[in-house]
């Protein structure tokens, strides 16, 4: 079973107490944006085979949203971090780069 460390309550949470929330760091587009931007925001996802930055909610725990860096090809978890960030913290980036040397997070956006 997938377990993720909740950065708020500090426990290692089982998948059964978590709710997946899809790709993280999406740029929101609203009124005034182009069709292209709005479509991308609503429907287009990286869906990477490899490093995936994603949102999770500790639904049956503290109830808060946090973010995780996970590998969709190996199910390895590189780290979790608070949701109030616009990019992954340095230690998470380092953990990812240890396995994917060329990885830069901007390519994900």
């Amino acid at each position, binding site marked *: *079973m997938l377990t993720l460390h909740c950065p708020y309550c500090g426990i290692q949470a089982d998948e*059964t107490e978590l709710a*997946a929330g899809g*790709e993280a760091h999406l740029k929101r587009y609203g009124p005034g944006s182009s069709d292209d931007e709005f479509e991308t925001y609503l*429907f*287009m996802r990286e869906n*990477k085979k490899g490093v995936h930055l994603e949102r999770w909610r500790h639904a049956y725990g503290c109830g808060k949203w946090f973010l995780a860096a996970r590998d969709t090809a190996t*199910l390895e978890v590189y780290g979790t971090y608070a949701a109030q960030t616009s990019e992954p913290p340095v230690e998470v980036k380092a953990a990812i780069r240890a396995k994917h040397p060329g990885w830069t997070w901007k390519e994900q956006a």
Partner: protein
Amino acid sequence: MKRYSVFAVAREGLRYHTGWERAWRSPTPKKKYDAIIVGAGGHGLATAYYLGKNHGITNVAIIEKGWLGGGNTGRNTTIIRSNYLQDPSAAIYDKALKLYENLSQDLNYNVMFSPRGLIMLAQTHHEVRGYQRTVMANQLQGVATEWVTPQQLKEIVPILNIDGPRYPVLGGLYQKRGGTARHDAVAWGYARACSAMGMDVIQQCEVTGVRRDGNKVIGVSTTKGDIDCDKLGMVVAGHTSVLAEMAGFRLPIESVALQALVSEPIKPCMDVVVMANTVHGYMSQSDKGEMVIGGGTDSFNNYTQRGSFHHIEETVRALVETFPIISRLKMLRQWGGIVDMTGDRSPIISKTPVDGIFVNCGWGTGGFKAIPGSGWAMAELMAKGHSPLAEEFHMYRFREGKFIDESVAAGVAH
């Protein structure tokens, strides 16, 4: 290709089965093809087959990174039905069902199509209204389905507990023409027929890049070298985003795991397929006697063909109330596949931003039933640039808001 027949069986029986030939060739790739199909699952193979059969295009290669039918086609629970809500869905799924009805004869390969009937149980009042609406929509679409009462259901499916305390059975949507088929045989039958038309089924060959000249496709790079083509069909289900990235565009697809499991074999006890969408499980009995069980997808992006154990537990726990006899069955095998989910839970059969590249994907949890119809439409699209059956399934519908919303109509993975 030697035809299979009762005479062939008798002839081979008399000479110790020494005369059977290989069902398909394993050729080395040519330098160039008129069309390349990536992915030898059911949809890719059916596309190639109808390119040859309906449009006379036989200089075709089907390129597969693993073994043919080793993706979702060989991992699914084989439910076939066409009782969808929206008109474009009913049209393509019913086309597929009609082709399934004669597929064994058409391919000269027994795909073991078994139109044993399919029931979707209504276990909440909301579902009752939903399915009654579907019955009416199906009538307008010319798809024969009917509403059945709990008492009728009890007669058709005696092992059903219709007065479960939590989710009593309130009725059902019954499609008598629905049923199952042998999944591997569908892939093998199409592959054999493609090979017989002179097409190359190339297994153990991964496409690693898409080569373009400006905005026009000129070929692919593979683990067996570069291969050129005029037209390219991407039919790779869970790996669609990976292939699209190679070609330089994006699709509204997410890849997640869907699992299934089978029990130990038991005596025949259920001769229809039953889906219980509210509790998120469905079941049929295989010819070997195993109960074949499936449920919902996992929640997170995943390419590993392995799912979360607790989902299996949830599925089985949910089914036990409605089918009490399974409570003491041992489960024998469990497995997963990577399904390609779109935002409106309907497939994409479409031209793409790159000239000469076509995509067929997004069948998600329910594409086995669609294989012949999808291949028919995709072949027409690739050959003529236009297909009435595929018309509304283009990839730009998300931008335009023209969804084909089946997510409410089919609440469960099947």
